[in-house]
């Protein structure tokens, strides 16, 4: 018995000795943040070309410009000046002098040029499309060219030539986070994302990464050689709540173990309300955003060939619109979602207020379907790719509402390589689609669906192309906001009439912070965009 106890004790101590020695404590109270990134297993930081969801890229890297949400304008960051020619086919950016990387090197226009090429050429990049009109984009993307032919660097000025007129070009480009060429430039494009650089990335942002202890935490400290106004908080701790559910992170925020919660944490307003109920110091901020959720008809092709010709009829689509109970769906988000009659945020400038809101009306839908000779024996496949409970609830509601009108529906969760499943395989009749637009591109959804060419499931529909292409082109080549608004209104009306895409709701974002621990620039945050104004953050303790 004694031997046994001794052995157990020894084992306990042995295991206890596994981890290393503790480090000296921080001198100033750090800002505590939650950290998790999109890709699963966290041994590396994710490149900002893939992930701009968590806060770390905004601290460590810097963008060409900031978006001042309050005044709705771009303000200089790494680019001090920018200009364009009259027909919006050539843009020049002047890069700031004397910007230092965290390793002491100086940032040059070459770094910016390198980053743009990386965004385009990296196969994993989700930020490539913002450069799609630059000459030579396709050649670089497909690996036929080594460099972007439409881009030239002269001293600290970068010139980008566009293949076609596009006044909104900078609205897409401004948030590009610049990476150091001197550390990444000698690698193949495809190797960059998994290179050792991402074990402790080096940027030129207001904070530099100090200690990395994956998969538990990492810390940042204020970068003293920062070109702009120095950050208000010296130390930042990112604690990983990567694995698993949100419950532990939510509890940590209630307890004051996390000072600021991003929208990754606060997915639903009722979560925020519950947190505030338990910790009155917490405050929720509503961030203006343009996250659109909609149902898109597949009118083009299915890999399994099981197309539903009935959906080509306008009346059938309109009937479906009548069956989507937007109001109820939006209410699932506890006030965070706004039911919208079009694919534009109702708060936005371009929102077409003439379009009537379509309430659920089963009788009318049924009548429309019958008039259109809808085949009630077929099953409509609805695909979705979010695996959260609310989405499951929405699908349950949809199934029920469609069944009320006698339409059989099969909802299924797409798992695996989503890009292929959504754009190539397309084994669905309706897709529950989500997308985010920037402030400057309020009508981006119409724009995306006609021009990107990626949304093949409807892009090749002639009828639709004829209807939208001209308007979309005009929208893209118009710089005047009022004129754009008019075009947008027309497109919204067209979509409403033809019901190609059924709006579900527009999702605002909620962020939270602990008023007892930290002071944040509320107005800047609420205005949205990507200006975190780190200099205005202050620890209260």
């Amino acid at each position, binding site marked *: 018995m004694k031997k046994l106890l001794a052995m157990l004790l020894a084992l306990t101590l042995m295991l206890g000795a596994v981890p290393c020695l503790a480090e000296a404590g921080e001198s100033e109270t750090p800002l505590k943040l939650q950290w998790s990134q999109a890709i699963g297993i966290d041994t590396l930081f994710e490149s900002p070309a893939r992930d701009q969801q968590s806060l770390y890229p905004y601290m460590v890297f810097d963008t060409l410009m900031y978006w001042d949400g309050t005044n709705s304008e771009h303000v200089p960051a790494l680019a001090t000046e920018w200009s364009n020619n009259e027909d919006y086919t050539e843009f020049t950016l002047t890069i700031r002098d004397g910007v230092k990387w965290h390793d002491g090197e100086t940032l040059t226009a070459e770094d910016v040029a390198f980053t743009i090429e990386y965004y385009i050429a990296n196969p994993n990049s989700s930020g490539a499309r913002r450069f799609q009109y630059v000459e030579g984009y396709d050649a670089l993307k497909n690996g036929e060219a080594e460099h972007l032919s439409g881009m030239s660097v002269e001293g600290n000025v970068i010139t980008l030539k566009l293949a076609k007129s596009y006044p909104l070009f900078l609205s897409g480009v401004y948030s590009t986070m610049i990476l150091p060429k001197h550390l990444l430039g000698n690698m193949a494009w*495809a190797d960059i994302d998994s290179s050792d650089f991402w074990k402790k990335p080096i940027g030129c942002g207001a904070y530099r990464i100090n200690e990395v202890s994956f998969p538990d*935490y990492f810390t940042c400290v204020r970068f003293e050689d920062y070109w702009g106004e120095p950050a208000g908080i010296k130390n930042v701790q990112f604690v990983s709540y990567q694995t698993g*559910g949100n419950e532990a*992170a939510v*509890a940590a925020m209630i307890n004051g*173990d996390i000072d600021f919660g991003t929208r990754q944490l606060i997915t639903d307003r009722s979560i925020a309300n519950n947190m505030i109920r338990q910790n009155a110091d917490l405050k929720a901020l509503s961030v203006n955003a343009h996250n659109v959720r909609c149902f898109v008809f597949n009118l083009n092709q299915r890999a399994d060939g099981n197309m539903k010709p009935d959906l080509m009829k306008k009346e059938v689509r309109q009937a479906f619109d009548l069956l989507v109970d937007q109001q109820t769906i939006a209410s699932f988000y506890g006030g965070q979602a706004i039911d919208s009659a079009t694919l534009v945020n109702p708060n936005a400038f371009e929102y077409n207020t003439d379009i009537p809101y379509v309430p659920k009306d089963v009788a009318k839908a049924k009548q429309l379907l019958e008039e259109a000779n809808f085949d009630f024996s077929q099953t409509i496949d609805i695909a979705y790719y979010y695996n959260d409970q609310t989405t499951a609830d929405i699908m349950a509601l949809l199934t029920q509402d469609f069944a009320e009108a006698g339409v059989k529906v099969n909802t299924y969760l797409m798992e695996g390589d989503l890009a292929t499943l959504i754009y190539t395989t397309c084994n669905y009749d309706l897709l529950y689609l989500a997308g985010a637009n920037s402030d400057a591109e309020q009508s981006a959804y119409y724009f995306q669906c006609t021009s990107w060419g990626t949304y093949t499931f409807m892009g090749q529909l002639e009828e639709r192309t004829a209807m939208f292409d001209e308007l979309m082109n005009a929208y893209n080549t118009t710089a005047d906001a009022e004129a754009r608004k008019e075009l947008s209104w027309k497109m919204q009306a067209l979509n409403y009439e033809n019901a190609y895409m059924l709006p579900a709701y527009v999702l605002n974002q909620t962020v939270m912070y602990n008023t007892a621990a930290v002071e944040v620039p509320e107005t800047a945050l609420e205005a949205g965009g990507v200006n975190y104004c780190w200099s205005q953050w202050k620890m209260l303790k």
Partner: protein
Amino acid sequence: MFKYILRKLVALLPKLLAMSIILFFALELLPGDALSRTMPPDQYQALSEAQKDAAREALGLNDSPVIRYFRWLNQIFHGDFGYSASTGQNIGTMLAGRLPYTIELSFYGLLLATVIGLVLGFLSAFMKNTVVDYFCTSISVFGISLPEFFFGIVFIILFSVHLKWLPSGGRMPVGEHGFFSRVPYLVLPVMTMAISLTAALVRYTKNSMLDVMGKDYIKTARSKGLRETTVSFKHAFRNSLIPTMTLIVMRLPRLVGGSAVIETVFNYPGIGNMALTALNAGDIPVVMITTMTTGVMVLLSSTLVDIVTAMLDPRIRLG
């Protein structure tokens, strides 16, 4: 004793070997190019067909499976488990950051469950049909009647949100890796992990104790004039431990498997969770290797429990 341990360890070898063979051929049979699993995927993509052929030749991928198996085994011993299909990271590195913590979690879970389970089971038998007995029995039936994750969430609400005693998740505070600074982070997951095993052990220990208490050598002990506590503890309890140990061995896989759920609830980066994340990402090499790792963990820990049993029971040790 030494001989016994040696024998046990030797007996492990064929099992480990069998597992490694299964793993090797399962990975072999996976769709796709075996070469892609020997290097980061982006490197692989950058190679031309001719380069790939050359690399295959150089790495000996064209050799017979047996030779490749042994080469692969050698790599495993050097910590090279191949590369993840989703992140391109070396699986060995990924495991290194998590496996020790899952072992830690499971070990303390096992220890806590064993200690509490045995103590409560003993008390329950020793004070049969008293309030203590009913209390212990109720705990044990309750513990096996609810899913583990549920206890986890309730613990977070109770100990973390309401009482603010313990952190709700994670493995350690920022900047401190030391054992004692990690203790608060271990408490809730370990407690959750221990619950179902504790419940099972209370029941089992009680029954086993009652069974042993009816044995003749207990009468012998009493006839010596020993105190009842001495009789129960020294003579009955130690004997009742032996069948209980068998139960622990049988429940070990369930304990280790529970780590997937518990690590998810408490955001505790460990291998159960790694398997889950990899599964969601369709990262089959990682899934396979983590699963195998848990298998090895179970195997080793059952050997450990067997050794403890042998320490308790001379018949096993010397037989």
